[in-house]
């Protein structure tokens, strides 16, 4: 490398550094967002499983078939909020608000078709769809939205 080459490299670095920082910040923020989204999805999955695990004992005694408890949706919403609490610092809204706005539907009879997603359920099913606002300060530094909303879906049934 000659002295002219050294000057060229310095100039190139100075020119490319902002671009590198943008790419690096974006990559880090995407990684964080992906991790938060994964935890939110897990929170929703666990909430639906807990709710499905609570069955209507009276219906079981009468017909011998499993049927979702009457308060299955309430239980799913409650446990969704509880599960989100560990991710609360990364969320733009409180877990309770997010859970309250979630679209939770029960399909006690099978088979049935989810009118929102078109999915067919062969067993009594509980479905949860939620829009979760996640803080993305890295994007904000790049003049992008400071909050990124991710939509998750979870469904569970006794199989």
């Amino acid at each position, binding site marked *: 490398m000659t002295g002219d080459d050294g000057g060229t490299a310095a100039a190139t670095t100075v020119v490319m550094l902002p671009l590198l920082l943008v790419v690096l910040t974006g990559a880090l923020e995407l990684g964080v967002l992906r991790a938060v989204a994964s935890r939110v999805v897990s929170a929703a999955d666990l909430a639906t499983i807990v709710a499905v*695990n609570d069955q209507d004992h009276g219906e079981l005694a009468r017909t*011998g078939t499993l049927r979702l408890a009457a308060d299955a949706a309430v239980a799913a919403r409650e446990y969704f909020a509880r599960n989100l609490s560990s991710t609360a610092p990364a969320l733009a809204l409180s877990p309770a608000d997010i859970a309250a706005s979630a679209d939770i539907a029960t399909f006690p009879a099978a088979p049935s078709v989810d009118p929102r997603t078109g999915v067919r359920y062969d*067993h009594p099913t509980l479905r949860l769809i939620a829009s979760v606002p996640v803080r993305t300060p890295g994007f904000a530094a790049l003049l992008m939205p400071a909050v990124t909303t991710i939509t998750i879906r979870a469904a569970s049934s006794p199989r």
Partner: protein
Amino acid sequence: MIRRLAAFAMAITLMTGGFASAWDPVEQEPEPFPPPDAPTPDPDAFIIPAGLYYVTDTYVADVTTSYGATTTYSTTTVHESTGTYARVLGNVDTGASSAFDGMAFNGRGALTDGRALAGTYYENFVLTASGYVPVSIVFFRDDSETRRSASVPSPWPGATAATTISAPGTTAVPPPALTTPAPSVVPQFPTMPPTPIVPGTPIVPGTPIAPVDPVLRAGVALAPDGPTLPSAEVLRGRSIQFWPRAFANDVVVPIRSWRLVSVWPDQISASSGSLEPLTAQWIRMPEPDVRWSLRFEITTEAAPRALLEAQITVTVRSPALID
């Protein structure tokens, strides 16, 4: 010196002494009352007569029923307790004599040919402070006679059924002194045509009907008063109670015992029982489309010798995510 003084004092004492007329007050008192004899219980008073039982069906009246050429002599009872006890003295056949003939307050009765009726003598007791006291003897008639067909026309047409009820003591079996005579009642059933009994034909009074054994069936329910189910879904890890149930003519009858004769779930409370249910739990998840079949052998109070079978098919499920 001392000896002399002592002898002198003794002599003086003996010379001046005299006989005393002592009076012993205790000696003049009469003998104290002897301790009262403890009441000795009558050795026979509280001996429970052999075969004694508490009366739950009380004698009402003697009944004579005529149907065609057959006359039946029986006894009606009412299901009530008068606080008395009774025991069987013995059965007596038609025409046979008994040591208790003439002792029953309702008599024994006789067939048309003069022979004494068959039946059973009962002795009635009341429980008093001194024990079981016999109060009366009652005769329960159980006999019938059929007139010769040569001398009696066919019961159809024109056959009639008649019942005569006579009750020397209509209140209760013991004691006869408390009873009041009751008039005889002779209800008349309408004349019936000679219609053979076929399925679907209404049963008419007077038609002899053979006793029919109740239809027994058994099943398994998931609640003590729940319906019996052929199959059921259960969640893995959940404790489920299986209640063996039995019915006689679709009426619930008590379970005497049950026994699980099929393969067992992962956890069970017992392999046999009586009033308590079987509590079962599946820990392992079976292969897809694999079902468990629980079979029970059940005995009931209604028919203890009858062994009933009940079965329920179980599908074990577990909450799972849907893609």
